[in-house]
């Protein structure tokens, strides 16, 4: 059965399911913690693992590039830039 999700979410779902099946619950926790956007989908993956969600044929879905992209988009800490921004918000002396 094919779930009714947009194509762009299919790869995310595939990645989440793959991780869920192999590493439940660690992978889901990690996914939920790192990528809020896929929280809902990760929950679906957990449901899939428990049999409540009929499985997607993962082999027909292309690579999980999107999930990697989403994960890698989490900002890095930039204390130097934050300091500079804070400094720039102080009233300049003309």
């Amino acid at each position, binding site marked *: 059965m094919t779930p009714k999700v947009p194509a762009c979410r299919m790869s995310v779902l595939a990645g989440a399911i793959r991780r869920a099946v192999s590493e439940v619950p660690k992978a889901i926790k990690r996914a939920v913690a790192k990528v809020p956007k896929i929280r809902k989908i990760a929950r679906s993956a957990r449901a899939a693992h428990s049999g409540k969600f009929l499985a997607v044929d993962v082999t027909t879905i292309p690579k999980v590039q999107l999930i990697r992209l989403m994960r890698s988009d989490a900002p890095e800490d*930039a204390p130097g830039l934050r300091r500079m921004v804070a400094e720039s918000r102080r009233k300049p002396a003309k």
Partner: protein
Amino acid sequence: MTDYALSALSNEHDISAFACGEESLDRWLSNEALAAQRSWASRTHVWTDSGAPEVLAYFTILPTTVVPAGLSKRQIGGGRGSIPGYLLAKLALHERLRGRTPRLGPGLLADALEMIGTAADAAGGRLIVVDTLNDRAHAFYRRADFKPIPDTRRLVMRMSTARAALQA
């Protein structure tokens, strides 16, 4: 982010007296910035004192693509081929504004990153790139947490990192 007025460079601005101490940056502003603007090659934004035409600082930005060589996986972001981004091509402060407290360089950089963020909202772009002219500029961007690309004078920052810092 400062009390200086930020606007796109135009014929109305007085660029004749601009001097930042780096001749190539002064020359760019006086000879090339407007032409590049008219041809849509880049955009130059300037600081002026409110109501005055004299340019006190400027930065130039343009869209670019970055080859992944030398970039980390996180910087590349899972894509293939060139990575879309923005080049912060010029950033210069009039000598007269140097040594102020608080320093104005960070404010100018913050304005440039804000402007790049606005462009990225409309058009995307994963990385912000700078090619530094000298060690002093290199150190400035390093202090702002730009990451150097080994064996080059190029530094990069991911858009998400810049946005997070600006919104903090």
